[in-house]
């Protein structure tokens, strides 16, 4: 991915992520998150992960976020003053976050144990990240996890229905 293009995408991503946590209206936060997820899907495309990009849009941006929007509309949440915590907590949160980012940057750029060259190789097989490649792995090496995930989704569906049901009392 061209550095200028990456810089643009990174700036947009950070801007929309900040918009998620700083907006007053919950609907606008949700929409900013949709934009973030969509931009991430585009970044996935540039990283040769086509199936994941499509799944990100279908599952995350197209289903999970719709669920969020439904709940916000159902509970009819209006704009609220961003109910921020007290100043001390705010300061502590920002401090810890910047510490984390600094540590991550130091670890990544500085003395990380060598994993070979750090430049990403341009040559990658044509079907890397394609549906066939990921699906083959899913159905051979990760078959048990795949099936368990299916059961997990079933449990989640039943649980969500039971929890959100109106008590007929």
């Amino acid at each position: 991915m061209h550095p200028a293009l990456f810089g643009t995408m990174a700036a947009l991503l950070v801007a929309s992520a900040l918009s998620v946590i700083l907006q007053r209206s919950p609907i606008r936060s949700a929409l900013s998150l949709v934009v973030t997820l969509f931009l991430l899907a585009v970044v996935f495309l540039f990283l040769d992960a086509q199936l994941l990009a499509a799944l990100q849009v279908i599952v995350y941006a197209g289903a999970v976020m719709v669920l969020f929007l439904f709940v916000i509309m159902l509970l009819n949440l209006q704009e609220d003053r961003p109910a921020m915590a007290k100043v001390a907590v705010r300061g502590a949160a920002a401090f810890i976050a910047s510490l984390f980012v600094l540590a991550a940057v130091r670890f990544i750029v500085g003395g990380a144990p060598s994993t070979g060259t750090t430049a990403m190789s341009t040559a990658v097989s044509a079907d890397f990240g394609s549906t066939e490649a990921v699906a083959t792995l899913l159905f051979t090496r990760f078959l048990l996890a795949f099936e368990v995930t299916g059961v997990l989704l079933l449990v989640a569906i039943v649980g969500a229905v039971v929890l959100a049901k109106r008590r007929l009392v």
Partner: protein
Amino acid sequence: MWIEVGIAVIKTLTVLLLVLSLAGILGWVERKGSALIQDRIGANRASIFGFAGAGLVNTMAADPLKFLTKEDIIPKGADRLLHTLAPCVNMFPVIVAFAVIPFGDVLVIGERVINLQVAPLNIGILYVLAMMSLGVYGVVLGGWASNNRWSLLGGIRGSAQMISYELGMGLAVVAVVMTFGSLDLQAMARAQGHLIGGWIPGWGVLYQPLAFLIFLCAGIAESKRVPFDLPEGESELISGYFTEYSGLKYLMFFMTDFIEIGVVAGLVTTFFFGGWQVPYLMSDGFHFPWGAQLLLPQIVVALLQIGSFLIKVLFFCWVQVLIRWSLPRLRYDQLMRFGWKALLPISLANALLTAIVVLAFQG
């Protein structure tokens, strides 16, 4: 490099123009077709010096001018940004979904072989499903941003309906993908070029009749057309989730409806009716099963294929318009029951059956 960019731009512009004209013409077909079915005359007042141009004046001049010159009203208390954003978000995915629908095989100009598909993605179907998923946001936002209880109701109903029928549609598509073994729509269209038994064109509907019916039903439900148009509920919710929109924004919501008819028609054509395939037409001419041949230059072959695609798409658009004016509306609980308790199990069973058959034939 610039030639490739130029070719891509030309393809994009062609498809864009095609889609937008289709939407306009479908509006006219809807009005006149419904008039014919209901034994009345329909819209006949727009004419220039008595020249009505068979509806062209109405479609190209009168209707757009009417919408463009109307006042743009944003209801008090509504979120201005979201109110303006909703029609754009609604329209974007349905236009962009056309990018993967192939309208021809190849066009050979000199040594350059141009694939007649705007975006040759190897995840073609998933891209279309992704755009369909994004279409829910226009409805949700339109309902919410109107600051109107009934619009909100229409919006919630509409989005619940859309996400319910996405499942049936997706599973029908899974069966189609298993039959053709590829997610790319151009590969699917090409795979329907063989002849069954030497005589019958091997179109998808012969392999997957049930999936065709399921996909057509789910597609009509996705675009919220009658008989699934309770979110729009013309006699109950006025216009449902786009009641509070006027002028250009209303035109965008309206056009999205017609463009989505085109998308569903294009997808049905590509999956089940051979896409751009003309029976017995190979890349160098006609090869009839009784031995006769008619060799044609490549450009004529390409034009025949594009024409065949357009005819099939128009046919399915017309079918959807007919269905709209023939069937009564489904009540909301009937609609949801149909989607979850009928379409979903049937498409699951169809996918299972297809998997068994494909395995049996391979092994």
